[in-house]
């Protein structure tokens, strides 16, 4: 406890250096400016802004990224509330009530409760990360390759098979990602795999190219083909921007409950902020004194999901920093950003580079404050960004998307790959195949393979290591339960519902 406090204080000394504060502020502002664009979610924002950090020191770059991440989330909520176009699945719950509030001329309080709720949830969740991370590190230091492999299989299962509309489509996306992860030189033996003699492919498929291809190019192709001829309707901000006394009274319990729901979902590698946001929405609907307002713009229905989203996203930093396991597309891109600097997150990172880890955690607190004081007063400017006509908006998005892919290696091959991933993204969007499992599979697949082969090397090829170690056996058992239980529940329900 004392050691944690000491480390955190040291982290603040780093995060509060004027240059790092500046990077944080730039990150929050850019993140909001890009994240507010319709159709641009946090994952794409982080991927597109990655090239901006090439010349920064690792600490400065990661602090800027934390800012971009938070800014993108806030920008996304603004778009969701005003345009009713959720940029990611975690914002769908917000759109339910948020857009209704905007339609009734209460956009101001909706945006305010979302911003302040995000701040409250983000700060509490960061506090929990601070307390929890060192404990997880203690445990993780005892992990061997078998335990890591079990944990990664658990993460694969939750992000692809358990969440989402269809298990088989989630798994298909995951396996496409795993296949893409195999491209390049095998790290253990130096054997090239699936490179077809193309030198550019020997380095493997870059996560940024995949993410930008799926999210930006795929989205542009999809929106162009299916909704570019539909006029957009934006709700104007009318009336007061501020929350009334009753808004406050109805918001804060929702913020706190949502934090309690969101954080655990993010911090166990259970992937995605979608479930906690809908859970929070359901809880608020049930507990509200004004259930009749739900569906017509109830403020709790915005306050809860927004806070749950933020708490879950912050909680996802626990497995990312302490175990090196990303549980969302955005976290996968953050992991790629770490790897660009030759940093592999995990328990050793806390011991080898405490400055970096604690500087980053401290900057999360700072980023949250910055978000609140920079963004609320600037809401008018962000709303202006929303009025950019769609043709120019998507033109601009693609200029930045191609820049992000091209500047990695200055290679046309990356641009061609980008287009192929764009076609893939279009098909996945059109036929409802989730994209996050592919992104996570690409970055986590090679790590899982390495741990798997390491575990078998240690055991001289004996596969019983995976079920003889208690921790890995438990994790595998959990994974099996996750697959079997929902299936059984569905069967039982169907049997009961069937006419006798």
């Amino acid at each position, binding site marked *: 406890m004392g050691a944690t406090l000491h480390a955190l204080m040291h982290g603040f000394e780093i995060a509060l250096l004027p240059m790092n504060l500046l990077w944080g502020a730039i990150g929050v502002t850019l993140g909001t400016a890009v994240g507010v664009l319709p159709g641009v979610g946090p994952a794409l924002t982080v991927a597109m802004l990655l090239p901006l950090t090439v010349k920064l020191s690792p600490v400065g770059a990661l602090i800027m990224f934390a800012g971009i991440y938070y800014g993108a989330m806030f920008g996304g909520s603004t778009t969701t509330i005003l345009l009713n176009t959720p940029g990611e699945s975690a914002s769908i719950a917000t759109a339910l009530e948020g857009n209704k509030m905007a339609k009734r001329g209460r956009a101001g309080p909706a945006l305010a409760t979302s911003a302040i709720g995000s701040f409250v949830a983000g700060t509490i969740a960061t506090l929990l990360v601070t307390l929890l991370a060192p404990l997880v590190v203690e445990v993780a230091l005892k992990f061997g390759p078998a335990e890591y492999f079990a944990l990664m299989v658990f993460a694969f299962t939750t992000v692809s098979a358990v969440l989402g509309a269809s298990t088989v489509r989630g798994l*298909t996306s995951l396996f496409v990602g795993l296949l893409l992860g195999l491209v390049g030189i095998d790290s253990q033996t130096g054997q090239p795999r699936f490179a077809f003699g193309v030198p550019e492919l020997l380095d493997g498929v870059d996560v940024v190219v995949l993410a930008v291809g799926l999210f930006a190019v795929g989205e542009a192709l999809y929106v162009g083909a299916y909704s570019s001829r539909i006029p957009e309707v934006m709700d104007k901000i009318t009336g007061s921007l501020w929350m009334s006394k009753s808004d406050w009274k109805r918001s804060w319990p929702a913020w706190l409950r949502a934090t309690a729901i969101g954080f655990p979902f993010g911090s166990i590698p259970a992937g995605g902020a979608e479930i906690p946001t809908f859970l929070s929405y359901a809880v608020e609907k049930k507990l509200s004194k004004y259930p009749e307002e739900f569906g017509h713009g109830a403020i709790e229905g915005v306050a809860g999901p927004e806070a749950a989203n933020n708490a879950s996203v912050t909680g996802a930093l626990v497995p990312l920093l302490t175990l090196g396991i990303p549980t969302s597309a955005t976290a996968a891109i953050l992991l790629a950003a770490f790897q660009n600097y030759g940093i592999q997150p995990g328990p050793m990172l806390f011991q080898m580079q405490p400055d970096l880890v604690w500087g980053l955690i401290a900057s999360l607190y700072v980023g949250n404050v910055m978000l609140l004081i920079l963004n609320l007063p600037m809401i008018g400017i962000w709303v202006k960004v929303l009025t950019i006509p769609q043709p120019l908006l998507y*033109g601009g998005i693609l200029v930045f998307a191609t820049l992000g892919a091209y500047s990695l290696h200055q290679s*046309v091959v990356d641009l061609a790959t980008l287009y192929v991933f764009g076609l893939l993204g279009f098909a996945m969007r*059109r*036929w409802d195949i989730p994209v996050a499992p592919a992104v996570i599979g690409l970055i986590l697949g090679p790590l899982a393979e390495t741990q798997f082969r390491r575990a078998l090397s240690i055991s001289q090829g004996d596969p019983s290591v995976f079920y003889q170690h208690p921790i890995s056996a438990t994790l595998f058992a959990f994974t099996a339960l996750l697959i079997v239980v929902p299936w059984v529940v569905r069967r039982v329900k169907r049997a009961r519902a069937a006419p006798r």
Partner: protein
Amino acid sequence: MSRAAAPRRSPAEAALSIGVLLLGVATAVGTAMLPSEGGYARIGPNFMPGVTGAGLILLGVWLLYEVLSGGWRNMPPQDAEARGEHAFHPLAFAWVSVGLFAHMALIQSGGFVLAGAMLFACVARGFGSPRFARDLAIGFTIALAVFAFFVLVLTVNLPAGWLAPLFRLAGIE
């Protein structure tokens, strides 16, 4: 549940399912050409590819089974209007693609700024903007600003291409 029960035909779902199946077969064929010796671990660089290929084949079969038994489960409505969208607009799709290909063709020779301007104008055209020349000018301005920012502030080089002499005159290099 009710949506899944309604029988319907979707050639696209069938094609995608077969695509996944074929991808799995191709992966398996590629795996067969990889060496298998693995030292102490007794599994080599061909193990994960084998698992991935087998997985894709299984998933392809599963998807195909769903197609044959009433279509993929829990799908959004087939009808574009029910999704709040319009029917597939081939010109929009084509213009976005043309923009990206023009960008690929131009970036090494013509340079980042010209390629970016062309991409911007084509995409805007695809989204229904009637003013190609104006869009070209806007795209040029944006790409020029990005170019200058990368070269002057970040000191990251982007291809200058045909406009290199002009940039040199303007001091952007």
